[in-house]
């Protein structure tokens, strides 16, 4: 009875005629008030699983999402589609904007909020007054100690849920191995959540890993590949600088439109690059992991990793952007022995060294309370995520209570040991993840089977040549060349102005 109505609602509100795999099943359970854990592969449209219910339920849908840019993007897109009663509460809002939003929060059906905002007492208080009918946790793997992007501000989510009146919970993730799934439920205190787990393997993608001696070899190889087949392509880098550099080199070497994209760019330029790529005005985009969230381009044919990611989960997410139209696509990872250093450096920036613990406690001896986060970074010479880790540990061991330092020799000794142990655990975990990724690069069997092994049992049959082990070579790949970016003809400004203003037919 529900089904025909749901379809109607889907096309009415979102203009889609069909649900994608898993969406309908999750939405039906959500509408019946069940707690649901949904694991859907990237690109399937996780967000629809709460966006549609938010329109059909009586109260407010509260969505906790860790990525502000993703949140802001979704709100923009919903508004463009005509869904007006939606808002994102985040730390980018200035005081006035935030007060205005809080004062009329009950007018919104769908409220996105970042986890750190939930710690803000004023926001917390306002949220209590709402009639929350669905509590959504996006990127739910961040809750778990074993999730690849564990975020300290994502903890205590169970308490938040209780404070807003224990509404039904929907936890969503694209990459959560079985142990993470279990931990999510445990952390939320909802061990009876209904599972909706969908396979994450992509039958339409081929895999290849290429080993090179030098960075220059990689560049030469990429030039060759791009020149041979002009196709919508993404190239991932782990640094902004190399993304810019290679983009510039490719621009000079090739007769194709290449641009770079990273988090350090001006907001309008970021939007322009995204839109150019969406509208096929760009062939190749050289980017960091900052690109991709909220970009739903169907016809990306190649995802090249100039640097490999620090973990299999990120890799799966990034190749998930290819071939969303279901047509053949390929992932090529380029590897030089030197590349191992980069992920190591990234990891070191994320986690403190053991010596930082002594430094921290020496600092605490001379202070009665913590300073602002920024000042703490500076005084202790820690990166943001390093400090977040330590701060959380201090709170957990009760060395810090409401920013005040608690002096107690015994407590401190215990805390130090505890923090040291946790730090080692986390390091080991990250290292394991890194090795898992590297092992996959060196793996000599079927890459498809190996890649998805930690997440699911077996894979579906590939619809394309499977991987370099199973006989795939990128040079012979048939990846549909007709989809190249539009030829950009550089007319002079007056012609372009006419085109923008749709004046061509009138004046010619």
């Amino acid at each position, binding site marked *: 009875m529900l089904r025909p109505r749901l379809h109607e609602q889907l096309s009415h509100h979102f203009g889609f005629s069909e649900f994608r795999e898993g969406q309908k099943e999750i939405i039906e359970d959500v509408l019946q008030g069940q707690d649901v854990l949904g694991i859907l592969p990237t690109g399937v449209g996780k967000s629809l699983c709460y966006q549609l219910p938010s329109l059909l339920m009586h109260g407010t849908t509260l969505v906790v999402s860790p990525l502000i840019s993703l949140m802001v993007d979704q709100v*923009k*897109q919903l508004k*463009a*589609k*005509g869904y007006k009663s939606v808002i994102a509460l985040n730390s980018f809002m200035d005081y006035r*904007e935030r007060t205005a939003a809080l004062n009329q929060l009950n007018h919104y059906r769908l409220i996105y909020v970042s986890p750190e905002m939930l710690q803000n007492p004023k926001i917390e208080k306002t949220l209590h007054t709402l009639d929350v009918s669905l509590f959504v946790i996006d990127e739910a793997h961040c809750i778990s100690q074993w999730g690849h992007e564990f975020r300290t501000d994502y903890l205590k989510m169970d308490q938040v849920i209780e404070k807003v009146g224990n509404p039904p919970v929907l936890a969503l993730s694209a990459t959560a191995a079985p142990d993470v799934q279990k931990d999510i439920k445990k952390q939320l205190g909802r061990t009876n959540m209904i599972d909706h787990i969908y396979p994450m393997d992509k039958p339409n993608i081929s895999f290849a890993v290429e080993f090179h001696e030098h960075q220059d070899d990689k560049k030469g190889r990429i030039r060759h590949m791009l020149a041979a087949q002009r196709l919508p392509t993404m190239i991932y880098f782990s640094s902004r600088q190399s993304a810019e550099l290679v983009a*510039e080199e490719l*621009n000079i070497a090739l007769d194709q439109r290449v*641009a*770079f994209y990273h988090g350090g*760019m*001006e*907001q*309008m*330029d970021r*939007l*322009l*690059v995204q*839109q*150019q790529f969406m*509208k096929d*005005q760009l062939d190749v985009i050289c980017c960091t992991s900052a690109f991709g969230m909220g970009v739903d381009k169907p016809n990306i044919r190649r995802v090249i990793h100039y640097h490999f990611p620090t973990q299999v989960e990120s890799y799966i997410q990034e190749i998930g952007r290819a071939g969303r139209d279901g047509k053949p696509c390929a992932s090529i990872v380029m590897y030089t022995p030197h590349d191992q250093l980069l992920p190591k450096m990234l990891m070191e920036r994320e986690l403190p060294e053991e010596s930082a613990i002594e430094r921290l406690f020496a600092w605490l001896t001379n202070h009665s309370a913590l300073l602002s986060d920024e000042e703490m970074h500076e005084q202790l010479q820690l990166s943001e995520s390093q400090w977040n880790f330590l701060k959380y540990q201090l709170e957990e061991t009760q060395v810090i209570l409401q920013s005040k330092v608690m002096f107690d020799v015994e407590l401190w000794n215990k805390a130090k040991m505890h923090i040291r142990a946790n730090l080692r655990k986390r390091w080991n975990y990250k290292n394991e993840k890194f090795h898992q990724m590297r092992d996959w690069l060196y793996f000599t069997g079927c890459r498809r089977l190996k890649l998805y092994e930690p997440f699911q049992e077996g894979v579906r049959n590939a619809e394309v040549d499977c991987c370099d082990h199973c006989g795939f070579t990128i040079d012979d790949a048939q990846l549909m060349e007709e989809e190249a970016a539009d030829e950009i003809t*550089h007319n*002079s*400004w*007056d012609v*372009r*102005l*006419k*085109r*923008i*203003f*749709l*004046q061509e037919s009138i004046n010619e």
Partner: protein
Amino acid sequence: MFAAILLDCIQSIQGERSISGIHNLIQGKKSSQTLQDARLYKLERYFGIYPSLSKLNAHKTAESLERRNFIRFNQENHPVLTDEGEKYLEDSFMKDGNFFSGMEHHRNIILFEKRLRLLIQTVTHSELKDFAFLPIVEDPSVQAWMKRLYRNNVISDLLTSLYEELNSVLSALSHLEAELFTRRLTGGGLIGETREQLAHDYHLSVEDVDLLIKHALFYMYRITLSRQENYPALTLCLEGMAKETLITSSAKQTLQWLNIGLSLEDIVQKRRLKLSTIQDHVVEAALIDPSFDIDGFISKEGQKDILTTLENLNTNKLKKLFEALDHNYNYFEIRLVVASSKHTFKEDRHAPSSTS
């Protein structure tokens, strides 16, 4: 263009300020020191024309000017123009006159640009019956303005008027400026290009791309402002724009307290700000408002003293003045007199002292 602007600033400042000082001016730092510099050296036109300019890029460009022998650095590490630099500057179009009027308009230009970009995108996409485009400008106040404008539907054939006005304005600019400006526009299904893409295609620096487009906007803004009846569509983007009087709203507030008779100390208490901040506000007011009376802060006698020393020394360096005046006046008093003496209407106000 960036090189020429830097050279122009360096020429006017004559070795009395560092590259950082010049950066602050072009970037539009709202400190009384920077405001004062802009007045002192008659560089108001460049104030705030490039808010996103980084210190690093200003220094990099200065270094390249040094390599090209256009400038050298004096003992205090302040840049000075060389003969070659002078020649280069004379040949550049900066000297034929340009349309920058930063001090007066830089904040309005920012708003004007945002509105214009969103207006073009909205008007052309409505023509295409595409109402689900992602707005190129995210500023909520600009989006609200756009919605209001659209609901009221003020001009019957907005698309054509806007096209014709832009076409006419762009024709008056250099070919390069018109190219860059047009290719950065988003609308009618075309997506604009990034600064880096334009820099690559036209073999320019990113700073030059930014400034050439900015210059085009200054021209557009000013021609619209002066001939509103000829540019009804562009005039829409001027709606509600106040004449820029005071630079900071904080200074404005301090002035309001002053006007109802509070002392500086009272205002310090009331606003919980430092005395030096409140003094900055007063200097700011003296710089900008010709009718601002400084007699309440320093005696006529003192004003005369400071002015005489100022003229004798012919320097704008506060420290030198402070020492030459035997520490009889504090920095606030000196800055205040220097500020009010330098603005355009000084002849009228300080007639007594200049005759002495």
